[in-house]
């Protein structure tokens, strides 16, 4: 039996409350997702996961006015909130609380009601007397291939890969990955990122549902050509300065990996050790971050792509010097954009604070919409959402006073 919850929403009068009519309207005519192709005459919805719950922002046609619906699951740690682009109706939300273990919730009415997964992602029970792994949190959710409705993938902390074939209600571990004899070596014992090692960036090739990439912090990028039956590392050319061997086969720390939906052989990654591009069938990443200004460097968490131009990407650099503050270099936040696949980069900071601003933008918290021009959105750990309606030329605040933001996803609705 599946549990049904009603989302708790704030009682404030104002634009902050979305009516049921709004929700119905939004759920009736959903259009294609932000990373899926040419622009449409639709409105942008932002799906925001935070340390204290989830929020849904709906923009008007001009993307200037926004109404917020939420918080959903106030007090829960929400790492990811994702719309299913296949039915353009189902939301999946990864949650846990400080006390309660990890789970996944599902809504088909834009958050008016939620149902908890019958079987959330969980590792296999280890034989008695041995230590088994425990999912601390579900970090990443990826809808499966367009030809496989109901299929979803989840990445967890610690590194685990899970699959659902029923729209996120029951999840099974992919043993060919989770029980792979090499996995302990791939992920090492470094402990991973401060809030736990994680599996993320699960990418399904839009041409072939058997072809899957994933990223692990730590562990590196891996590829499967047979729907996860076998895996191989794909890290050649990527630095791993924090390891004794700076050029290992695996053990890297990709922060965010993306493939371009219209040119799936083009991959980008923002890594702990720089910004990279890979053009398949090649297997050697090129450090395009070497073309960033030296005083800024090429360290960061997120990267996001132009939905129609595989040559265009944006990053949000952070300070990776000395003790790794992971804030905007020099307290001067800026986005950097390339329009030539990383051969050159342009600083885009108009409208952002000129100084004394110590932003951190996490790996899931930078997204592009499918508009023309493309709208950009990033959320900060200090609880602000910034937006650019013109592909990064200018920026303005969209929301403030929010909890620590973990993720920002976009969707287009009618």
């Amino acid at each position, binding site marked *: 039996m599946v549990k049904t*919850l009603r989302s708790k929403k704030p009682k404030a009068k104002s634009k902050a409350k979305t009516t049921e009519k709004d929700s119905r309207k939004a759920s009736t005519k959903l259009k294609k997702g932000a990373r899926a192709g040419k622009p449409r005459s639709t409105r942008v919805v932002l799906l925001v996961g935070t340390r204290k719950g989830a929020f849904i922002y709906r923009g008007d046609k001009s993307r200037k006015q926004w109404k917020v619906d939420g918080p959903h699951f106030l007090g829960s740690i929400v790492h990811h909130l994702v719309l299913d682009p296949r039915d353009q109706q189902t939301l999946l939300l990864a949650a846990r609380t400080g006390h309660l273990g990890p789970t996944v919730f599902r809504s088909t009415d834009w958050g008016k009601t939620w149902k908890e997964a019958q079987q959330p992602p969980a*590792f296999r029970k280890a034989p008695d007397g041995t230590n088994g792994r*425990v999912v601390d949190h579900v970090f990443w959710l990826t809808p499966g291939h367009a030809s496989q409705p109901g299929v979803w993938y989840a990445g967890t902390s610690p590194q685990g890969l899970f699959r659902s074939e029923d729209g996120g209600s029951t999840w099974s571990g992919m043993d060919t990955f989770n029980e792979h004899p090499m996995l302990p070596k791939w992920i090492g014992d470094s402990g991973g990122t401060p809030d736990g090692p994680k599996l993320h960036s699960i990418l399904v090739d839009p041409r072939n549902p058997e072809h899957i990439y994933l990223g692990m912090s730590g562990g590196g990028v891996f590829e499967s050509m047979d729907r996860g039956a076998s895996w191989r590392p794909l890290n050649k050319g990527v630095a791993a300065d924090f390891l004794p061997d700076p050029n290992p086969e695996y053990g890297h720390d990709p922060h965010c990996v993306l493939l371009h939906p219209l040119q799936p052989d083009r991959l980008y990654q923002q890594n702990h050790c720089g910004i990279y591009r890979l053009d398949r069938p090649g297997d050697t990443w090129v450090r395009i971050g070497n073309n960033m200004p030296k005083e800024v460097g090429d360290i960061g968490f997120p990267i996001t792509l132009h939905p129609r131009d595989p040559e265009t990407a944006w990053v949000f650099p952070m300070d990776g010097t000395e003790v790794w503050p992971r804030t905007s270099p020099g307290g001067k936040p800026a986005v950097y954009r390339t329009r030539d696949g990383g051969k050159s980069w342009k600083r885009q900071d108009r409208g952002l604070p000129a100084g004394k601003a110590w932003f951190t933008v996490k790996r899931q918290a930078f997204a592009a919409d499918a508009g023309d021009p493309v709208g950009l959105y990033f959320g900060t750990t200090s609880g602000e959402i910034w937006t650019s309606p013109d592909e990064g030329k200018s920026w303005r605040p969209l929301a403030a006073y929010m909890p620590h933001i973990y993720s920002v996803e976009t969707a287009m609705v009618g």
Partner: protein
Amino acid sequence: MRIFVPNPLHSYTRGRAEVEGAGASLGELLADLDRRYPGFRFRIIDEQNQIRPHIRFFVGGEMARSIAHLINPGEDVQIVCALSGG
């Protein structure tokens, strides 16, 4: 027996702070509660059958260290959410 349920789990018990359950051990009781309130168990017991880090169980006033802890007739069970940070 009576089970006292902390606030974070009230969404499972339909708002009730006190529920009834049965079992000769904590493990059996949790299986019973999960049948009555699906999803309840996994939020407080992990997939290796260990009590989650910020959850405590008191059986007849005594802290239970594992789900193997036996429950004597007449004992109540209290579930407590321990400190978990900000």
